């Protein structure tokens, strides 16, 4: 079973900044972490490997600093790691990003399952996973809360919906995006941490993955950010105190529910 886990390094939630002029996320120099949903994707990949054997490859696109996210993935148990890093990738929207990742996956070639987190907490789009499946023309199951079974070239899994869940069966290869309910991620072992320190991370540029210039970076992006505004801070709230506190809140609630 060859598994590819696509991860993204995101700014730590508490530490988010935008470039005033370009309105792009400032990624360099900010403390990064693996996108929380991607931690569940890594864990699920490792569990599948533990059960079925095979190999887990962690894949990310990002600046050189994203290498630390891949080392963390290796510390957790991933066997190989690939960083897609090229100035030409900068400014990619979800269309271009999913294209770049799909080019790398085509180069890796031998895979049965691709795992992604449900969405990244910075962009919040949930577009890249399904986008990769589209570029590769393979099947997809999103918002997976449980992989039920894998056998004879097929996978069955539960996808969360607004109303409960659906049980799906798909041919392999298949791309799955996962939610938090699927597992509890492990912590890196000491041995894993040692391994991560000395591991070789492959770094691929656009030319290495035969990505067409017109389809990557700003040039390959179909959307552009026109402006970014910060919503006004919420006004100081009213705190009800003492004897009549509940009465005060009840009145306020009644007013709101009219």
């Amino acid at each position: 079973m060859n598994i590819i886990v696509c991860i993204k390094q995101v700014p730590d939630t508490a530490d988010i900044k935008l470039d005033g002029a370009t309105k792009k996320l400032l990624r360099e120099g900010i403390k990064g972490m693996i996108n929380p949903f991607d931690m569940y994707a890594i864990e699920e990949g490792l569990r599948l490997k533990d059960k079925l054997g095979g190999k887990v490859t962690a894949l990310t696109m990002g600046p050189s600093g994203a290498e630390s996210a891949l080392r963390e993935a290796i510390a957790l148990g991933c066997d190989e790691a690939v960083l897609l890093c090229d100035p030409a990738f900068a400014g990619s929207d979800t269309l271009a990003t999913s294209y770049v990742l799909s080019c790398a996956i085509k180069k890796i070639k031998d895979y049965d399952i691709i795992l992604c987190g449900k969405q990244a907490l910075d962009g919040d789009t949930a577009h890249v996973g399904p986008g990769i499946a589209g570029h590769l023309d393979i099947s997809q199951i999103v918002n997976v809360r449980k992989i039920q079974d894998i056998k004879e070239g097929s996978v069955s899994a539960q996808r969360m919906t607004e109303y409960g869940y659906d049980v799906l069966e798909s041919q392999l290869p298949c791309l799955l995006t996962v939610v938090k309910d699927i597992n509890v991620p492990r912590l890196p072992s000491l041995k894993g941490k040692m391994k991560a320190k000395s591991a070789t991370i492959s770094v691929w540029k656009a030319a290495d993955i035969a990505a067409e210039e017109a389809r990557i970076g700003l040039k390959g992006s179909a959307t552009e950010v026109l402006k970014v505004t910060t919503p006004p801070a919420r006004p100081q709230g009213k705190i009800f105190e003492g004897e009549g506190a509940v009465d005060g809140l009840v009145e306020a609630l009644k007013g709101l529910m009219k």
Partner: protein
Amino acid sequence: MSTIAEYKGVWVLGEHRGGAIQPVTYELLGKARELADKLGVQVSCLLLGAGVKIQAQELIHRGADKVYVVDDPKIEHVLEEPYARIICDLIRKHRPEILLFAATSLCRSLASRVAVGLNVGLTGDCIGLDINPEDRCLLMTKPALGGTCMTTIVSRSHRPQMATVRPKAMKEAVCDGQRKGVVEILELQESFFISRAKVLEVVDETASTVNIMDANVIVSGGRAMAKAENFKMLEELAKVLNGAVGASRAAVDEGWIAYSHQVGQTGKTVCPKIYIACGISGQIQHLVGMQSSDTIIAINKDASAPIFKVANYGIVGDVFEVVPLLIKRFQ
């Protein structure tokens, strides 16, 4: 290659559940009508599913000029592969300039696959849509970084301009029984329906829980609820307020309530009219999932809890005293 000027019209994918049109479809139609009137073009609605064609007239009453229906048992459930194939084919034939989907979990996935198929851009989870009168471009506004900022996005050089729209962000189109329009029932070749995935079972859990994404009022519990039994109190309050129960990650991780109720960074992003946080301290990971709510009410023992910084109203007090009183007052 056709030029941008050849793309005309606003399209909406109708969202339904087992053939019942979902309110978000009417919200999409309301916005689509407004955009189309500004552009001087028509609104079309695409309806895919099994047993859905009887709904076509309703979509016309809600603002569609034309409804395209693919009604086939093979696409009873949303499967991205055949759905995307059918939608891409229709878009290539009819060339609308705008294509809108609901930002529900499956439609977000489907929209992304369609966008890649058409090699166009996609803006996810929009809460505002407008037309720039100068260049007729669609201005798509969405919250980013967990609602910390709003971004307005355009797609100048690609058509159609695609967006998914957050449920309850737009006003529903009113029903006008006099409106006339055209319904086209499409018969497609078998090859359109091929799918490498299939749905084996659909499990409905709404009998036991209300979908927090749909709720106007959410009563949410955190670590201070202390145990699973105490969530009964929140269920009761939610019931009398006609709302749903949410939870912080801490409460879900303790096993007091199912993950489908979790609000925040690794759960759901919600924006109800009223969000009542009971015994939730308000860490940033929780705030990003609910700070766009219209009104936030906090009940917490700790006056210095960060939740009070975003709350419109608050009570510094014990949830186990305050919540029962609130239930009594709203019964």
